[in-house]
């Protein structure tokens, strides 16, 4: 039922899906991950350039998908590079999607059990999350998009609110000098920053779901979809480093939550704001989890040309098991890095190769 493409989404829904997909773990860990590489206050420039790199990759992905406007990546890649190779790449992409979905679930469980639900067993945090996700996805892409449309404005408003409340402990000196040690340190951070922008790859599938008249807008969609998270990330990095300084960020496991815990505003109805951040963050993780889960099930359904539901239920235990695999938090972070590297190959190298091949083929024909 849902593996057919009857479900349609509008361009603005597509934008919101990309935004919600991109915003996830990065909000909490990007300041530390990038400072580790850069070691100067120029991190925000790296993040900015990382976003630009992601935009370029995003545009390539869209261009590729526009070659086959009515098919998803899983369907058209066999047209380009043949049945077996296409099948193999699809399988890799599917594996990538459900792995990332498991990763998000686990990160969510770690943070919640640390900051919110101390003493609650991990399975009790993960299971409702998985079930609610399953419930949502069984409604199809349009249902997902409508939920994301609700999540996004809430995220936007609350995020800006808490970010600017932290201005009280912001010190501009922590962000100076700009490019004091030249551009080399800043360049080192671009890869890490780019990995925080995982998400435009969903356009491999989304273009097929857009209304035929809107398909030409897909480039604009992906650019807007990356620009807004870019803004979020730059604000986060600037605020966190401005308050905690480079050295202070380096040793923090979750620097952004640390920032929110570092100030209290007496007199307002709320004095403490980290729970606000966690609320929107969990919503964002949920969004990323559901869209990747959906992408993986859709892939399986289209690969085997079957109905989506059996795959949906079948993937659930697999996601749970993968989520529980990393032994400790360091393992989990390394796991995240590995997913990132897989993404660089799958969505950096593969789409442009496919695009070139299809162009060449097109000319021949």
């Amino acid at each position: 039922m849902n593996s057919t493409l009857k479900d349609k989404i509008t361009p603005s829904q597509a934008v919101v899906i990309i935004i919600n997909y991109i915003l996830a773990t990065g909000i909490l860990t990007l300041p530390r991950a990038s400072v580790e590489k850069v070691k100067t206050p120029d991190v925000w420039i790296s993040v900015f350039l990382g976003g630009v790199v992601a935009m370029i990759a995003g545009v390539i992905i869209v261009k590729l998908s526009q070659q086959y406007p009515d098919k998803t990546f899983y369907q058209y890649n066999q047209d380009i590079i043949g049945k077996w190779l296409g099948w193999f790449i699809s399988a890799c992409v599917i594996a990538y999607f459900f792995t990332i979905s498991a990763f998000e679930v686990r990160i969510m469980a770690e943070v919640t059990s640390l900051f919110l639900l101390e003493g609650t067993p991990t399975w009790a945090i993960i299971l409702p999350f998985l079930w609610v996700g399953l419930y949502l996805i069984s409604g199809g892409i349009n249902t997902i998009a409508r939920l994301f449309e609700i999540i996004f404005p809430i995220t936007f408003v609350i995020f800006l609110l808490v970010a600017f409340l932290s201005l009280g402990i912001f010190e501009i000196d922590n962000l100076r000098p700009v490019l004091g040690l030249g551009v080399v340190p800043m360049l080192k951070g671009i890869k890490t920053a780019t990995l925080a922008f995982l998400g435009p790859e969903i356009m491999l599938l989304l273009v097929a779901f857009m209304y035929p008249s809107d398909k030409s807008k897909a480039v604009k969609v992906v650019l807007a979809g990356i620009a807004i998270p870019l803004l979020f990330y730059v604000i986060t990095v600037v605020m966190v480093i401005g308050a905690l300084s480079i050295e202070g960020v380096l040793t923090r496991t979750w620097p952004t939550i640390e920032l929110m815990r570092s100030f209290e505003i007496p007199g307002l109805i709320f004095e403490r704001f980290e729970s606000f951040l966690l609320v929107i963050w969990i919503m964002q993780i949920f969004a990323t989890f559901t869209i990747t889960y959906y992408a993986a099930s859709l892939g399986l359904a289209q690969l085997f040309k079957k109905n989506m539901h059996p795959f949906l239920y079948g993937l659930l235990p697999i996601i749970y098991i993968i989520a529980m695999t990393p032994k400790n938090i360091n393992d989990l972070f390394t796991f995240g890095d590995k997913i990132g590297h897989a993404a660089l190959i799958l969505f950096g190298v593969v789409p442009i190769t496919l695009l070139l091949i299809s162009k060449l083929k097109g000319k021949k024909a």
Partner: protein
Amino acid sequence: MKRIHCCVRLLLVAMVTLLLTGCWSSKEIEDLGLIVGTSLDLETGDVSSEEQQDARYANRQLLTITNQFVTSETTVSGTKEGALPEKAYKNVSETGDAVLPTLRNMLLKVDKRSFAEHSKVIIIGEELASNINLQQTLDFFLRELEIRPSGLLFIAQDQASQALETNEPTKIPAFQLVEMMEGHERTTKILPPMTVAKLEGKLYSDSSFLLQNVSTENGEVKFAGAAIIEGKTKKLRGFLNESDLEGIAWMSGDAKGGLVKGYDEKSGTPIVYEIISAKSKIIPHVKGEQISFTIKIQSEGRIAEHWVLSDKAFDNQFLKKAEKVFEKEIERLVRKALDKTQHEFQTDVSGFGNKLRIDYPKVWQKRKKEWDQTFSEVPITCEVNVSIKDYGTSGD
């Protein structure tokens, strides 16, 4: 197919609601002992328990930790009879060689569940700070989740646990310290608050810094200058008194409000200047290997009090004269503070290194390892510019 799907969904909703009932590990507020302040001291006296004696034999330093608890029994509304308890707080001490095990040993003495989410202050005793690396002492506080990084840090002259005592029955000393800290807006003799969050950056950047010093006299807690923590060793180096702090505040531009007291040259009577705004700019100069600094201080304010009978504030001549007096006084304060930090303690606590880092990052990279040493030898010039805007409601 559709029927099955519907059933599955229904089942999902049912299962989720089962797990979402909440209160999984709730804690009743009546059963909590809220920790509002913690003090840490070096223990040099006799020890009793086997654990402590073992530590002593192994030559490990022992610390005494005192937690200030506020419980439902210490607060007035908590007691059923409405009778006033003797004290609004309850201090519990315990000794050990690491922080958390010592805190856990308090379980043996306290009936309430300790809860540190509302911890406001951490006070470290003089002896402990000068013997043990702060990063080690505070590791637990930086790591523990229940302790918020918005808490304030103090150094206590003598015993830190004394700073958590008061004679007044209704006061909670930990809260008192936090409120006293707000006075920093109105005087240059109190440092801007140092939170645990800010401390972290300071500790890991190996730069020297100041912590507000607390002293106790006759059961009265008082802010008395600042403690210098040396960046390299992260131990207490020495103390600055209140007037040194004034100099530091002028240098680093932290003077948000406060007074400058000068004396009229002719009559020797006091004139008092109240700061409306103060700005300072530390400008580094690098010529080859030679580093030097210029401090430019600009302040606006008003005459808040003057005892000079011969002059009137309506007279611009007098204002000019007064400005000169204050400029001199501020320069004297700055010089004095510089002299102490540069020569007596040889530590940079007023952000000169930071300015060098910003303006000459490459020079800083080379010099940062030995910065405190370098700082003690650099020439520093000081320019002060005071302008008096008004003189209150009396023109006399």
